[in-house]
């Protein structure tokens, strides 16, 4: 049993799938010679050669547009955006093309690709490097948005994302790239997309989280446990399409719900989850749904980022408020 980090688990998934499937290629800024600025794609160039591991010129719209063209031919690019804060020049291709190629051609062409991007705060990075704007993408039809919260889930979900015949945005919570390790056997076993994971069962409250906030939610659950409060923790994992069934079933049981995300509050993914609960779970609720989120400000520079990001304290406090 070897314990590995999320960074290593992602690399392990890439190596596994590139070995199995000759059509999988990796591309992006600094992913080849440098192995990625977070070293996620380290050694891939050596293992798979320059035809399959490609440094691109510095242009994000190009990375997306080129990947879409490749995917239309059945090549399966795993394209990296160096940080989520630099994905926006590619927005047009993601919404107008990746999400629509299959639909527009009535299935004649498709777009089996993965866009990877490290996201989120907590590593004292310069401006624009700490963004969490997954909600922008969860509004876009035709794509999937997947966010792992542990090394094992990163491995299984990335395999699923690469194998999925449609475009997947795979957002990697960089704060936990190397924060903890898990045993992740290299079996090539994918995890299901479009499904939440129940990370901890409980009876008093449902805490819904994803990415780096999942660990904070688990930590909050421990704090609450000490006070005799039993929290169920749900890792949403696939932000789009949302598995509301699992969440609603949990709320039926607990009657209380706290949703956590680092992104700004207004129109975050938490809004959609809360809205669905308001429509379909209203009569299960014993108290209002609470959202613990980043503030509706620009993500502040490192000196204040801790004040911005939700944490176990804020989560457990919110839980006490709704109980």
């Amino acid at each position: 049993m070897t314990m590995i980090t999320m960074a290593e688990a992602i690399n392990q998934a890439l190596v596994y799938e590139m070995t199995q499937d000759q059509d999988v290629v990796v591309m992006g800024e600094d992913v080849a010679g440098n192995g990625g600025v977070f070293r996620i794609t380290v050694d891939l160039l050596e293992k798979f050669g320059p035809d399959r591991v490609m440094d691109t010129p510095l242009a994000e719209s190009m990375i997306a547009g080129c990947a879409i063209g490749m995917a239309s031919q059945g090549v399966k690019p795993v394209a990296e955006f160096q940080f989520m804060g630099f994905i926006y020049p590619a927005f047009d291709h993601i919404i107008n093309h990746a999400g629509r190629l299959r639909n527009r051609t009535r299935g004649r062409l498709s777009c089996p690709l993965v866009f990877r991007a490290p996201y989120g705060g907590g590593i004292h990075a310069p401006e624009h490097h700490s963004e969490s704007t997954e909600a922008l993408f969860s509004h876009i039809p035709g794509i999937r948005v997947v966010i792992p919260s542990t090394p094992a889930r990163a491995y299984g979900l990335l395999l699923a994302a690469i194998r999925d015949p449609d475009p997947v945005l795979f957002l990697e919570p960089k704060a936990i790239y190397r924060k903890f390790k898990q045993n992740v056997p290299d079996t090539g076993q994918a995890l299901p997309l479009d499904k939440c994971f129940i990370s901890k069962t409980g009876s008093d409250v449902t805490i819904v989280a994803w990415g780096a906030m999942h660990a904070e939610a688990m930590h909050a659950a421990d704090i609450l446990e000490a006070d005799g409060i039993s929290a169920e923790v749900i890792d949403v994992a696939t932000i789009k399409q949302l598995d509301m069934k699992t969440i609603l079933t949990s709320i039926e049981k607990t009657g209380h719900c706290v949703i956590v995300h680092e992104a700004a509050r207004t129109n975050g993914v938490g809004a959609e989850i809360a809205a669905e609960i308001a429509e379909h779970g209203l009569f299960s609720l014993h108290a209002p749904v609470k959202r613990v989120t980043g503030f509706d400000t620009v993500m502040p520079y490192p000196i204040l980022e801790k004040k911005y990001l939700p944490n176990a304290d804020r989560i457990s406090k919110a839980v006490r408020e709704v109980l």
Partner: protein
Amino acid sequence: MKKVAEFFVEYFQFLDKDSKVVDDLPEFTNDRGFLISLYRSMVLTRIFDEKAVRMQRMGQLSTFPSSLGQEAVMVGTGAALKKEDVYCPYYRDQGVLFRHGVTPKELFIYWSGDERGSAFSGAREDFPIAVPIATQSLHATGVASAFKIRKQPRVVITMCGEGGTSEGDFYEAINLAGAWNLPVVFIVNNNQWAISVSREAQTKCETIAQKAISAGFKGIQVDGNDIIAVYDKVSQAVENARNGGGPQLIEAITYRLSDHTTADDASRYCPKDNLDKAWDEEPVERFKKYLEDYHDFNESEDLAIKDECSKEVDQAAIDMLNFEKPNAESMFDHLYENFPEALLVQYEELIAMNKEGGK
């Protein structure tokens, strides 16, 4: 001070505006059958465009961008494509698509406002029409990259208007094509207008062709109203790319003789004089006269071609109008290959709404 790099842009023309031969004709001009097939495609394109404009006026199409006056650019480009090559279109290049296996019926369906028009039965790997300007340039680099990765001797052509060359995507595409030495040919249909914005207002550069210099490869100009020049230069660029010679940019100089689309009124901004002058240089008559002068082409052959094309287009229009309307729920059909459970409720709601005859 020293000069460290020098560049130039060449212009190619074989037939001048009066159909006089002004340069040594390429080999293929000995193949009368091929020339007639080019002419036929140009005629088909023009007749299709005329019909489409009329149909739009009758409410049978939603909008339509005619390629009137630009038929040589389109057909010359389309003819340079082999079956196994891929084309990444914009929205004014019906003539290219026809040459590559897309049918008039399909394009009527598309412009009637129905996704099924992009299902292209005869050009299975071509991209669908790209409405967001210049995005197709990047898709072309991706398709070309796939060919390169798989070591397939195939080529991509993509086209945009001269206005489209102002978009960052165009430039990012040519830069990548140069850096990766991709088998892709960029055609610019320089028809002098981007809706109401003139070629001069779009960019200060003397030629559009020279934009390729910024990407480290060759750009040339051709007389876009001379089908011989267009076909000759595009097919040379295609074969050069096929042989590993990398990308090329071809600016085809022509004129938009129609409104931008049926939603536009060019008389608001386009000086009448320019238009009159451009009519004198238009490609269909020019090529016809050349065929008459050098290849014994006669009026009855011409009439037969026009008649045949009209019939083909009329039949396509009828086929489009008779095409069964899609179900409402078909809007979900090709969203994902694996239908997400989360969407089931909406999907059923949509079906129910339409069963009830709800509006």
